[in-house]
């Protein structure tokens, strides 16, 4: 899978796609959606879609498309080759969501959670396939969350298309298996060919599966930790595993929107009545003018 478009900037999300086969524009089609790499703390999450004419069901079955999780990496790659070879009948598109994009989204001032992000990526893929002129009649989506809620959301957006959202749809519907293979191949490729902008040598580097529970992943994270900046752009800072390692092994970093427990403590309880009768030595004339306090300007005579 040629990912040079993504590799030009590994911090930005990126769409990779095949041409839409001519027959998918005239004949009614189904479209499957699945994701790869949702759980890992390392590397991108990839959303994938695969579409073909409804009449090509047997073709997809003959290709032996199955849930990408039950296949080995080599098998998935050869399946993707088959999808590629059937480019007159089958089209595909993936969106690579790199760790930086995921972290930045989840750690905004107003949090954008992983579910919303996933839904938006899936919806974006459907819209982009429709914009290519593909005649989509049926959509099948694999989900990890509540299928009904998600299904209703999609039905509201695409009222003229039949929509099925189901758990483990990648094992049930060949077109979703196809999507899952495209997504997984893209994820594997991007992880395998990751080049660290931070200059970490990838030669002989072991980072395991990328799942937080994998000891090799944990070891990689601790050993590549920068005390001040935390991790490389290969890591999802928004995962609690990452945040915990920074908190334990990095230097303390406080943000203006961190909950300040100290301040809250002061707010509790009211001032003693006596404080209102106390003589104040506080001369307002000695206060700096608001112009300076507004700008955080103070005079400095010592460091």
């Amino acid at each position, binding site marked *: 899978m040629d990912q040079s478009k993504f590799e030009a900037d590994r911090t930005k999300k990126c769409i990779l796609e095949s041409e839409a086969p001519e027959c998918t524009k005239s004949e009614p089609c189904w479209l499957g959606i699945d994701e790869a790499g949702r759980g890992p703390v390392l590397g991108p999450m990839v959303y994938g879609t695969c579409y073909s004419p409804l009449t090509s069901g047997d073709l997809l079955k003959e290709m032996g498309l199955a849930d990408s999780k039950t296949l080995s990496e080599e098998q998935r790659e050869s399946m993707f080759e088959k999808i590629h070879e059937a480019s007159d009948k089958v089209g595909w598109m993936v969106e690579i969501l790199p760790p930086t994009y995921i972290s930045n989204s989840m*750690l905004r001032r107003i949090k954008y959670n992983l579910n919303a992000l996933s839904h938006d990526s899936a919806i974006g893929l459907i819209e982009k396939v429709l914009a290519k002129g593909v005649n989509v009649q049926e959509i099948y989506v694999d989900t990890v969350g509540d299928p009904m809620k998600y299904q209703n959301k999609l039905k509201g957006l695409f009222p003229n298309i039949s929509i099925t959202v189901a758990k483990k749809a990648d094992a049930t519907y060949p077109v979703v298996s196809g999507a899952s293979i495209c997504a997984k191949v893209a994820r594997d490729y991007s992880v395998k060919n990751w080049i660290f902008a931070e200059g970490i040598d990838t030669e002989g580097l072991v980072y395991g599966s990328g799942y937080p529970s994998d000891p090799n992943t944990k070891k990689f994270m601790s050993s590549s930790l920068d*005390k001040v*900046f935390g991790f*490389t752009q290969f890591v999802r800072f928004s995962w609690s595993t990452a945040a915990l390692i920074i908190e334990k092994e990095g*230097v303390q970093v406080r*943000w*203006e929107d961190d909950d300040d427990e100290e301040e809250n403590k002061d707010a509790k309880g009211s001032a003693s009545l006596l404080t209102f009768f106390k003589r104040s030595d506080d001369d307002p004339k000695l206060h700096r003018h608001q112009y300076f306090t507004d*700008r955080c300007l103070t005079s400095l005579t010592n460091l």
Partner: protein
Amino acid sequence: MSMQINTETVSTAPEISCHLLPCEIHHNEEANVCKYFETTIRKEEDLLTGCMHGRPLDGEKVALPSGYTGLVVIESRKAATEEEDRMLDIKSKFNEFTYWNLDKPTSKEDMVSKALQWIDIANILHSPINQDECSQRSVTGK
């Protein structure tokens, strides 16, 4: 006790890039700014973005006002007693810096931009008044 900066080395001090981040970093040593922070910076149509600990930042480059030089100083030798003068050496210098907001586009209302306005006002306040230009009389309040 007073504090002095050894300015002899100003001309030879290396120029560095400088960033003002919207977080408190409890660390007063060297950091891998080039490798871990500057690699996250992107520029699109004059808008700077970066990220720190996975949090999105919006940045703006600020040139120091003319006549000013930014200095990074280091106290090579701590004064032994409180009475002794403290001497700071110049480690590096800068003529511009980038300040960063946490997930908020930069604007004229940002503290840094506002604080720097004082320099212009101070220049006017502290420059001698030319009699010819002084057409206004001070208000006496009567």
